[in-house]
Every structure is written in C-alpha cells, then in structure tokens.
C-alpha cells in the first residue's frame, strides 16, 4: 500500500493549481458550484486543451498523453476544487471519448478523438427518455436502417450541456423484435442534423440544466454507429461506470465547502462546539469519499472498467454533497435562503443554490437506488430482485 503521490504527480497538481489560480486572478471566471456541468466557457476549454489536459489518458496517436487515471483524477480534482467552467469538454473527455476509444471504429476515433483533445468537439448525452429513466433498457427512440443511413425518431430528455453540445451520444432501438437489452445501438449524432431540435429545461435553481431533444426522422450515416449494432446496452453500462467514477460526484459543490469553512472562521462561529463538530464531520466524510474515488481510478488503471466500485463511490459521495449543502444552510441561518443576486446574499448565494441543486446529484448518472442494486448484486453477489 502506498497512499502518496509521486513527485511528478505532486508537481502536476501544483501546475494545475497555478494555472487555475492565474485564470481566477486574471478575472476570466469565478469559482462556482456545478461549473463542471453548467460552466460553459469555450475559451477556457481551449486553454485547457492547449496544455494537453483533455484526453489525458488516451493514446498518443489520437492526441492523448497516455497518462494514468490517477493523473486525470488529480487534474479533475483541482478543476473541481477551483470550481472551473469545464462543461464544454467534460462529457467528451470523461466518457464519450472513452466510449469511442473502447468500441468505436478506427474511422470514428480519428474523426472525433483529436478534436475532443483540441477542445473543439463538445458532447451531450442522449440516454434517458420520458418513459425510460432507471429502466434505460425500455427506451423507445428508434433507428431504422435506410441504405447507408439510419433514420432516428423519438425523444430524449435530461440531456446535460445540451445547448452547447455539438454532438450527442445517443442510444436508440435498432431491433424492436429482439429482447429489450439486445436491440439497442449507440450513435454519434450531429446536433445540427436536420430534424433534431432542443428545448431547454430549467432546474429547481432556475438554471438551464438540461434539454429535451427531439428526433424527427434524423438521418445518421452508418459510420456513426459506435461499436456493434444491437450491443448498445452493454456499451452504455460500460460508459456509465465511467460516468460515475469521478471526483465531480464528491466535489460538485466544493467551492461552497471552502467558503462555509472560511465563513465560520471569520464569524467566530467555528468556536461553537456544535458547528465545529459538524464541519469536522464534513471534512471526515469528504476525505473518506476521496479515498473511495481514488480507489476507482486505481481500478481503471488496472485496465478494468470500474463497476460496483464507482457505484459505491458515487452513491456515497452525492450524500456528502447534500450533507454539505444542508450544513451550510444551517450555519447561515436565515441568510441561507437568499439566492444569488439578492441583497445580503452570503457566499454569492452558493448555499441556497447548492441546497436545491444537490437534490439532483443522487438522481443523475444512476439513482442511488440503482447504484445500491449494482453494488449488492455485482459487488456482493446477492441474487437479483
């Protein structure tokens, strides 16, 4: 066992910190909660790309750096610590690129991976549907083969980053006769394709968090089929393992953590035993969650897709984020309810935003209930219910 980072890793972390601090100093952006998924800043993404920090673990032939998953975790951990606006590239970098790398044709890899790496291709996800949430295999959006094309029709929902996405990674039914898990395929669809339309959805914090995506006979060339036809369900499970794997599940609202500790210190609240105890408990929960997530990166480093391990870390971590928001609200008392932009709003309104926003953390990318099913059945070997 070794819980230390290498000298190179420590240097890398410092390099990322210096870069982000410099960005903040120049006034390019302000640290914000949820910035990994709601902070759209194409220029920031370009600057990150220039450093070679997108597709960090990917093979060099596609523009990657072939660095370890722990290195990537260090990078994303720091991005989250500083609340950096990384939403433009987050999905491509975290999971769609990896899916193309794992299952896509050589042609697809060459077309997309170098562009993601350069910060020039933004992705959104087309997984959930109005009638298919946790039960993803029941999805109804279909694709019908027509010569060299597939014609897609149906509706996707809860698509994060959708307004900015240039492409969607979409799962559709390609064989309605097959058992439901065996008739789904994965496509990369151009967001500008004729017949595709988006309608924004506003979340509980009044932020545009998702889009509904409508497919009205959208024609997609066969070469944008990712992996094997009708194997899409197995591919999406693999991709979800990665989607759940990261530090954004623990540190989505990290700027609030720093801010509330600072606030408690400055206002002498931290001398009150109950508040000390609550903040210390948060720190303990945070550090414990961090270890669960580093474990996931080490599993990926062994070349395994993290499965029940990322289910565990995600289910655990989103509880921490909710707990953090709750404690922050409590410490702020009546001021906690003030929203960003209001007179007297403390901590730039982060507490109220996070209190509301964190309700969705344990729903997206697999509800906590689904994650516990995975952990129980795949991790502990309990019989399927």
């Amino acid at each position, binding site marked *: 066992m070794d819980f230390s980072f290498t000298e190179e890793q420590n240097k890398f972390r410092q390099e990322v910190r210096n870069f982000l601090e410099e960005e903040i100093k120049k006034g390019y952006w302000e640290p914000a909660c949820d910035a990994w998924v709601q902070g759209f800043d194409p220029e920031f993404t370009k600057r990150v790309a220039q450093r070679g920090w997108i597709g960090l673990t990917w093979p060099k032939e596609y523009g990657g750096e072939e660095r370890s998953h722990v290195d990537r975790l260090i990078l994303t951990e720091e991005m989250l610590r500083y609340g950096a606006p990384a939403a433009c590239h987050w999905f491509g970098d975290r999971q769609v690129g990896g899916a193309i790398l794992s299952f896509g044709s050589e042609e697809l890899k060459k077309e997309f991976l170098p562009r993601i790496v350069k910060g020039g291709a933004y992705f959104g996800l087309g997984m959930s549907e109005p009638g298919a949430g946790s039960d993803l295999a029941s999805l109804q959006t279909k694709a019908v083969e027509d010569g060299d094309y597939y014609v897609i029709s149906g509706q996707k929902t809860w698509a994060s980053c959708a307004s900015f996405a240039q492409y969607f990674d979409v799962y559709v039914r390609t064989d309605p006769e097959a058992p439901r898990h065996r008739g789904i395929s994965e496509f990369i669809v151009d967001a500008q394709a004729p017949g595709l339309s988006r309608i924004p959805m506003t979340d509980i914090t009044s932020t545009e968090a998702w889009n509904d995506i409508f497919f009205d006979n959208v024609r997609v060339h066969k070469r944008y089929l990712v992996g094997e036809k009708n194997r899409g369900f197995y591919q999406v499970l693999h991709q979800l393992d990665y989607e759940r794997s990261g530090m954004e599940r623990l540190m989505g609202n990290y700027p609030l953590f720093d801010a509330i500790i600072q606030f408690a210190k400055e206002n002498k609240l931290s001398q009150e035993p109950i508040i000390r105890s609550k903040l210390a408990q948060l720190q303990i929960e945070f550090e414990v969650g961090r*270890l669960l997530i580093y474990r996931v990166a080490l599993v990926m480093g062994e070349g395994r897709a993290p499965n029940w391990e990322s289910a565990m870390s995600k289910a655990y971590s989103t509880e921490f984020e909710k707990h953090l928001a709750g404690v922050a609200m409590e410490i702020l008392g009546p001021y906690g309810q003030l929203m960003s932009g209001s007179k007297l709003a403390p901590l730039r309104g982060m507490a109220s935003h996070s209190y509301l926003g964190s309700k969705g953390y344990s729903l997206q990318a697999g509800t906590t209930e689904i994650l516990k099913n995975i952990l129980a059945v795949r991790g502990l070997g309990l019989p399927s219910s």
Partner: protein
Amino acid sequence: MKLTLTEEQEMLKKTARGFLADKCSKKFIKQMEESETGYSRELWQEMAELGWMGLAFPEKYGGGDMSFLDLAVLLEEMGRACLPGPFFSTVVLGGLTILDLGSEEQKQEYLPKLIRGEKVFTLALTEPGYNTYDASSTTVEATPGGGSYTIKGTKLFVSDAHIADYLLCIARTKPKNEITMFLADAKNPRINCTILKTIAGDKLCEVVFDQLSVPGVSILGQLDRGWSAVQMIIQRAAVGKCCEMVGNIQRVLEMTVDYAKERKQFDRSIGSFQVIQHYCADMATDVDSARFSTYQAAWMLSEGLPCTKEVAIAKAWIGEASQRVFALAHQIHGAIGVTIEHDLHYYTRRAKAAEIAFGDASFYREVVAREMGL
C-alpha cells in the same frame, strides 16, 4: 498510489487467517471470556513461535524487522477472528512504546522476552473520570525520594493488567507536576488489580498503585517530558484498534451477506429483496471506506509521516461506520442474531469496546476541527 497489499503481506494475511480459523474458534473465545486469565498460554506461545509478537521489531532484539503496516495486516486478522488475549497490550501498547522510548539497555532487557512470548506488557494510562486523553487530567502521582519514585493513585480500564508482567504507567511527577512514563513490575504486591466485567468480555482492570516504589532507572523516555510520547502511543493505539475493527466489520459484512443469501422467507432468499440489498450495500460502503481510511493512517504512521488528521479521520469514521454496520447486521440477521447461539454477538461486543478505546468519534472530530484550523 497503491491500495493493495504486497505479496508478503498477502502471505501473512493468509497464514494468520488459517492459523486463527484453526485455533481461535468461537468456543475457545467463550472459554477465554469466562476464564480468569482471558488467554491461553499455549496459544500465546505458538503465536510467538510464528513470529507475531516480534513482527514489527528489529532483528537485533529477535524481531522480524517488518513494518507497522505489516502489523496492521495482522491486527486486522486478529480483529476478524475476535482473538482474545494480551497481544494488543503487549505489542502495540507495551513493546512498540519501549522500542520508541527505551534506552538501549531497556530495549535489550525487555524486548527479547516480549518477542519470545515470555512476558506480557500493558499500559496504565486512563484514570477514573478521565476520558479526554488530556495531560492535565492525569492524577496518578510519582514522588521522588532517595533515587526512586513512589507511585500513588488509580488507573482504570487497563487491559490485561491482571496477567501483565510489566506495566507502563503514566504519572504526574513531582515537583514539576509534569508527565513521566515508568516501567513497573506488575507483580509487585503494591499494585492491586481488579478485573472489570466488560461488554466485550475482555479483561480491563482497575489498577491501584498503593505507594509503589520504582527505581529511577525505570523511567521510560524523558523525565517530565512524557506527554508527547503518550500522544504518540494513543495515536498508534487508535490506528491499531481501527485495524482490528476493519477485520471485525469485514467479517460481519460477509456473514450478513451469506445469511441474506441463505435465509428464505416468502419462498425466496431475503437477499433478493431490495431493502436488504441496500442495507448490504450500505454496509459494504462503510466497510470499504473504513478500510481505506484506516490503512491510510497505518501507512502514514508506518512511514513516519505526520498524520494527526488522518488518524483522527480513521478513528472517527470507523467508530460511527461500525455502529451503522452493526445496526444493519443485526436487522438482517433477525432474532437469531441477538442470541448467544449465533456468533454475531462476539463481533458486536468487541466492536463497541474498540470504538470506545483510545478516543471515540466525538473526541476525534474535535481533533479534526483543530487540524482544519477551526
């Protein structure tokens, strides 16, 4: 970063698990709980022959030259087996302290005997009403006179004192009122020992020092400057207890999952019900997180890195995690789990004792708060 054991540690784990499965049955544990001494001299000797007492000591004293992290692996297995006896007192509280603080002469005198399994050691630290592990609460006094010291006062919750050959005693030394550690002959008639009846069935004692005279050479470490060493002992003991608890709750998770698979109600195994599955998932999360935070602290301690915060996190976390694990383990086991027919109670009782020992979650939350600069 690496979260797996070395090949050597895996071997140690496997050997220890096999040996303890063979020698430390629940029937044996029950006998030990009911016996006066609380341990088997014969098993103790076998453990010494396996090199367990000496594992983390240098070769020159007869030790195995392995690290605290290796010892952590062994402690985990002992926790898993609910091993009764004075191993923790002798090695973690006694031996490693002597190794840290003792003069070369003291080490030469005591460590080989300890490593060969000939002598039992323990630490007399806590006192009545004393639960904050704070120097200012120490009331046992040592008064100098004629080249020796006279120790007077009462220590409480001293593990295995009734069978110990040597006691490491923390006392307030006159005239400065500072803290000093003494190594005393535990068999001296001026030491009165009463075994307390505890939740874990282990042997915690009240130890009364009735004007015990000890020579000046029995001071361990520095006169009047013993408290920082005591803090080190508490830190190491807390991590050691975490290791035992990891072994304990890992085993309880396995027992519970097995039971959930086997036990049938409504014509299906209860482990197929989602509510039971989620309980098990919660238990597994607590066990894994406790394991990583414990081993992080053990690794740092082993590497000699400053780790006040990490130790506090590990002990605070496992204290509460284990409570949750046992609440669910008992719920899933149903009524059989609250009988003495079933093995679960051995784990439940020991986990509670370990949670209390060397600082509980509240105690360590305050340590974390200080480390955060609150």
